C-alpha cells in the first residue's frame, strides 16, 4: 500500500486549511474531494468572520477572493402586517482590517485549493473516499474504489453528514432533530443597485438578517448578504420545528413568500436567479461535537460538528479553518518530535484552549433559549405593534407618546413570561 504523511478526506474549508498548513511545512499531503472541484458542493449563507482566523494564515487573506467586507448590519423583525428594521453602521467596521466578509464558496474554496497545490499539496477531485482502513482501532488509511492509500494521520473533513466516519464507527450518524436546513438563492444585481439598496459605499457590504414572519414563527430566520454583483438570499429552518408544524408548511414555498413580502420585494426586485443551493447545518452546539480524535485520525470542521448558532449569526467557516489549522499544527509538531501518539491530544488541547471550543461552551444555552417559539412569533409582532401605535395618527385625539409606548410595553413586555425569558437570557 502506497503511503503518505497525511490524507485529508474532503476539500471544504476545514480540509483545505489543514492541507495548506501541512503542505506549507513540506509534509506529503493528499486531499481527496468528491465534487468536480473544491467548492462545487459547498454552501454558505454568505459570511466569513476573518478576525478570529486572521493570524492563522496571515499571508492568505490578503489576496483571498472575498466578495465584500461587511460594514453594515441590518436586522429586520417581521411582524404581521409590519416590519421593524434596525440598521447599524460603525466606523470601525468600515475600516481595515475588516472583521468579516461575504463569500461565495464556489469561488473561495476553488481559490484555496489552488493555494494548497501551490504549496505542493496534492488535491484530487472527483474521487469519493469509500472507507477508512483500520488496523484494530487505528485508522491507517483510506479506500477509494479499488485503491488503498495509507497515511500516518487521516484528517476527516468530510462535512456535516459524516458518512465515512460513521461507517468506520468513529461517530454516530447525527440526528435530524439537531439540525437545521438552509436554502438560498443567489440573485444577480448590478453593483450600483446593491450599493444603493443597502446604503453602501462602493465595495462595502451588508449583512441583513430577518426573524419572525420569514419562518412563519418556526425556529430559524432569513438572511441576505451582498456579494460583489449578486445577493445571497435564504432561510435557515430548524428541522424539528419544520417537521412538527401542525399546519404543514411546504418549506420551499417560504422563500417565495419571503421574496414577495412588501419589505423584501423592493430589495430583491429585478434580481436574476443564477443559483439555488441547500445544505444541512448542525444546531446541536457543544453536544454535537464528537470525540475530536482517535488513533490515527483527527476530526475537523462540520464533520466534527463545528457549526454554532449564536442567534445573530450562524458560524461554521471560521471554525472549519481554525480546526484545520490546529490539526495541521498538531501533526507538524508530532512529526518534528517523532511522536505521532501526541498528535490527537495536542489537537484537542489547542481546540479547547482557543476560542473555538470556548465559544461553543459560551453558547451552549442558546439552543435551549431559541427553542422558545415566542422568540420567532411574539416578539417580532410585539415590536411591530409598539411602533404601529407610535406612528399611527387619525382623526381621534392622540395619546401622549409616553402613553402609546407604555401601553404597548405593558401589554407585550411587562408580563411574567417575558420576565422569565429575560432571566433566561442571562445564560446566553
Amino acid at each position, binding site marked *: 500500500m*502506497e503511503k503518505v504523511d497525511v490524507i485529508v478526506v474532503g476539500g471544504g474549508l476545514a480540509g483545505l486549511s489543514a492541507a495548506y498548513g501541512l503542505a506549507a511545512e513540506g509534509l506529503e499531503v*493528499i486531499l*481527496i474531494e468528491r465534487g*468536480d*472541484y473544491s467548492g462545487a458542493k459547498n454552501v454558505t449563507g454568505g459570511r466569513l468572520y476573518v478576525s478570529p482566523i486572521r493570524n492563522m494564515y496571515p499571508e492568505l487573506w490578503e489576496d483571498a477572493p472575498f466578495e465584500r467586507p461587511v460594514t453594515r448590519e441590518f436586522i429586520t423583525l417581521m411582524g404581521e402586517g409590519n416590519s421593524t428594521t434596525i440598521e447599524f453602521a460603525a466606523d470601525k467596521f468600515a475600516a481595515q482590517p475588516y472583521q468579516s466578509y461575504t463569500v461565495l464558496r*464556489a*469561488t473561495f474554496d476553488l481559490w484555496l485549493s489552488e493555494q494548497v497545490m501551490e504549496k505542493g499539496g*496534492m488535491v*484530487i477531485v*472527483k*474521487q469519493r473516499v469509500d472507507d477508512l482502513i483500520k488496523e484494530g482501532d487505528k485508522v491507517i488509511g483510506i479506500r*477509494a*474504489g*479499488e*485503491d488503498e*492509500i495509507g497515511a500516518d494521520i487521516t484528517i476527516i473533513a468530510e462535512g456535516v453528514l459524516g458518512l465515512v466516519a460513521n461507517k468506520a464507527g468513529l461517530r454516530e450518524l447525527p440526528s435530524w432533530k439537531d439540525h437545521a436546513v438552509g436554502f438560498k438563492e443567489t440573485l444577480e444585481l448590478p453593483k450600483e443597485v446593491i450599493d444603493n439598496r443597502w446604503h453602501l459605499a462602493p465595495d462595502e457590504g451588508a449583512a441583513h438578517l430577518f426573524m419572525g414572519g420569514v419562518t412563519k414563527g418556526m425556529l430559524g430566520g432569513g438572511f441576505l448578504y451582498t456579494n460583489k454583483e449578486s445577493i445571497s438570499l435564504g432561510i435557515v429552518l430548524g428541522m424539528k420545528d419544520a417537521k412538527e408544524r401542525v399546519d404543514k408548511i411546504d418549506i420551499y414555498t417560504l422563500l417565495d413568500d419571503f421574496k414577495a413580502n412588501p419589505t423584501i420585494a423592493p430589495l430583491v426586485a429585478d434580481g436574476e436567479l*443564477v443559483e439555488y443551493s441547500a445544505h444541512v447545518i448542525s444546531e446541536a452546539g457543544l453536544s454535537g461535537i464528537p470525540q475530536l480524535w482517535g488513533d490515527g485520525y483527527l476530526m475537523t470542521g462540520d464533520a466534527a460538528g463545528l457549526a454554532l448558532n449564536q442567534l445573530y449569526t450562524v458560524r461554521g467557516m471560521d471554525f472549519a479553518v481554525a480546526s484545520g489549522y490546529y490539526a495541521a499544527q498538531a501533526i507538524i509538531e508530532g512529526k518534528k518530535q517523532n511522536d505521532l501518539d501526541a498528535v490527537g491530544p495536542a489537537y484537542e488541547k489547542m481546540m479547547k484552549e482557543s476560542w473555538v471550543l470556548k465559544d461553543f461552551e459560551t453558547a451552549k444555552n442558546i439552543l435551549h433559549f431559541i427553542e422558545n417559539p415566542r422568540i420567532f412569533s411574539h416578539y417580532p409582532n410585539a415590536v411591530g405593534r409598539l411602533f404601529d401605535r407610535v406612528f399611527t395618527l387619525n382623526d381621534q385625539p392622540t395619546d401622549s407618546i409616553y402613553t402609546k409606548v407604555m401601553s404597548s410595553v405593558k401589554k407585550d413586555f411587562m408580563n411574567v413570561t417575558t420576565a422569565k425569558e429575560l432571566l433566561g437570557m442571562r445564560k446566553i
Partner: protein
Amino acid sequence: MKIIVPVKTNPDLQMVRIKNRQPVLEAVPYILGDLDKNAVEAALQLQAEAGDTQVIALTLNQGNRKIKDTMKEALAMGADEAYIVTDDALVDTDQAGKALAIAKAIETIGGADVIIFGEGSHDGYSGQVGPRVAELLGVPEIGFARKLTPGGPGIQAERSMGDFIEVLEAPLPIVITVASEINEPRIPTLMNIMKAGKKPSTDWTLADLGLEAADVAPKNKILSNLAEEQDRKNIMLEGDVNAQVAALIDALTREGVLEA
C-alpha cells in the same frame, strides 16, 4: 507503435451561463471534451491489444490557464506523456491554423503510427482538424470510426453507414477520428491520478515547432456567436378537462411531438 492523441480542452459547457445571448465564460473551468476522452480511450485500448505501444496526448492551449491540470486527466486515464503548445497566437486561430500547429507538433515529436482525434470538438464541433492534419501530413484518414482493431496491413476500422457497416483496412501511419459510440472512456482511479503528476509533460511554443504567429493567423473571422432565442408559444387551452386534453393532443400532434 506510437499513438498520438491530439485533444482539446474546452470550457465545461455545463457551467456556461447565457446572459444577453452571450456565453458567460468567466470562472468557468476547462475540461477535456467527451469526444477527446473517447479518443484517448481508443488509443489506450489499442495499446492494450497491440502491446509495446506509447500513447502521447497533445494539445494546443487556447486560453486555458490551468491546462497542465486539465491534461493530467488524459495522463491519469493512462496516456504516457503529454505535450502542450502554448502561444498567444493560438488563442484566436481557426481550424486551418490549429491543424498546421498540430501537424508540426506531430512532426516535432517524431511522427506517429496512429493519430486519433475525436470526431469533433466538444464546443466548436467543426470536425475539420483531424482530416486537415491528415492532409498536411500526407497520410490517409478514416473518419467516424466506431471500432478499431490492430491487424491486416496496419489497422482495421469499422464505420457505421446507417444501413450497413463499412470495414476498412489501412496501412500505417494513419489519422483516425472516432465517434462517441466507440467506447465508454474510463474514469481515472485515485492511484492513476496520483501517478499522472509524475508523468512527463513538455511545454512548447509555436517557435519550438518552427512556426510564427502569422502562420496560424485565422483565415476566417467569427462575426457573432449568439445563443438561439426561442419565444414560447404561450397557448392557453380553455374549456373543460376533456376538451383541454383533446386540444393539447391535437396541438402536440400538429407540432410533430406526438405521432398521429
